């Protein structure tokens, strides 16, 4: 019998057991978690179908990785510890930019948006995965690793490790980890910020495993006690219909292009919410409006000592 080496396949029983545990313990008030039946059904169904939706593109992406590896600059051995250390950092940096692109450009946001479409934040949310990631072509971002000389199988395993790591951080049950851990790694606290729709928290904390990339590239935002995250999208969905959840942003892009084809590039590659006349909300406009409101608030009066 062949033992699977895909970390996601190996971790699947753990995913199932931990969701059960979170639901049951939350029911009896032992930990903080909020579940809603239809929301859970959508998250898990998205996850289930996502395992199939990648298949049509899998051949192409694998062939592209093999081609890159055949034209590699170096030969990096899969058996060396240093090579695994190197691929860990290289993959995690790639993930950061993939994730940032997936939030800041609409064509890739269309594939990623459904991961953020739940108004809940629990372990089932982690499994709310895209059906259109392969079509969006973001897998191409990992090709330079094979071109550098990392074997495609090594890259695939490391991608799986990253995905499995990111599972456990989708929870409200864990408050904050020790300070040293919060400083270096992506944690439930950091990722709650990432899933929040509060203007202050938008487009922050793109990290996969290491939060240091956000600190380095200026996208880090700590979770603040005075501002609890509100989860979901800036404009939350009004349906639990799986097809609408999976494809609504793609349909929105198509409708916009049909209506105003001369702005096709903007509709595809502008930030989510971009419109030619600026009538829609982007993260930037929402943040600007929020900042203006903060500045307009009267400063707290200092009480002088008697």
């Amino acid at each position, binding site marked *: 019998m062949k033992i699977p080496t895909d970390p996601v396949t190996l971790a699947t029983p753990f995913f199932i057991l931990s969701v059960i545990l979170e639901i049951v313990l939350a029911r009896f008030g032992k930990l903080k978690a909020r579940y809603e039946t239809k929301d*859970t059904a959508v998250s898990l169904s998205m996850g289930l179908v996502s395992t199939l939706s990648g298949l049509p593109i899998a051949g192409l992406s694998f062939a592209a990785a093999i081609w890159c590896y055949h034209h590699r600059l170096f030969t990096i051995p899969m058996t060396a510890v240093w090579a695994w250390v190197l691929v860990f950092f290289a993959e995690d940096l790639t993930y950061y930019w993939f994730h940032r692109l997936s939030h800041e450009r609409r064509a890739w946001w269309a594939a990623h948006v459904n991961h953020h479409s739940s108004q809940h934040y629990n372990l089932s949310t982690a499994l709310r995965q895209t059906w259109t990631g392969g079509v969006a072509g973001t897998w191409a971002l990992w090709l330079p690793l094979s071109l550098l000389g990392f074997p495609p199988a090594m890259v695939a395993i490391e991608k799986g490790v990253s995905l499995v790591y990111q599972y456990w951080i989708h929870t409200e049950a864990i408050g904050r980890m020790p300070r040293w851990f919060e400083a270096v790694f992506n944690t439930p606290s950091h990722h709650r910020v990432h899933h929040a729709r509060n203007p202050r928290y938008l487009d922050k904390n793109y990290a996969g495993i290491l939060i240091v990339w956000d600190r380095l590239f200026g996208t880090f935002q700590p979770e603040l006690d005075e501002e609890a995250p509100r989860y979901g999208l800036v404009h939350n969905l009004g349906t639990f219909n799986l097809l609408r959840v999976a494809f609504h942003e793609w349909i929105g892009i198509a409708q916009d292009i049909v209506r105003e084809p001369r702005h096709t590039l903007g509709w595809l590659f502008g930030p989510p919410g971009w419109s030619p006349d600026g009538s829609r909300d982007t993260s930037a406009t929402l943040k600007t409006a929020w900042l203006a409101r903060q500045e307009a608030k009267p400063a707290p009066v200092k009480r002088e000592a008697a």
Partner: protein
Amino acid sequence: MNIGNLIQLAVSAVAVALLVGMAALMTRGRAAPPLDEAAARRLLAEEFPDDRLESLWLAADGRGGVARAGKWALVLMRIGDGYLARRVVWREAQAAQSRGGRVTIALREPGAPRAVLAFAAWPPPTAKGEAAT
């Protein structure tokens, strides 16, 4: 896709059904409370912080509401145990179709095509008993 993959898929589908059933069982009797005026105002203030509410009407079943803010209708509709909030031109919301005690306000978005709210009368009467215009 080989037989092993199919078995894995089937087992995963059963696991999904089990987990959804468990979520339903464990959240039974914990439905979100009906929306009252204070909660609606709080939600609207979060969603539309720059709008000044002139009037607010709550749906009869407590599953949403509509507020008027100048030329806008601010629409709230429960989805699961959360809410959807949208700003719609007041005149369009006012012209929405009402049937069987439910008004359907077109939102025209792929992810939120419409808001369906329980209102016995539409457009909603003002405090003076006249239809809001």
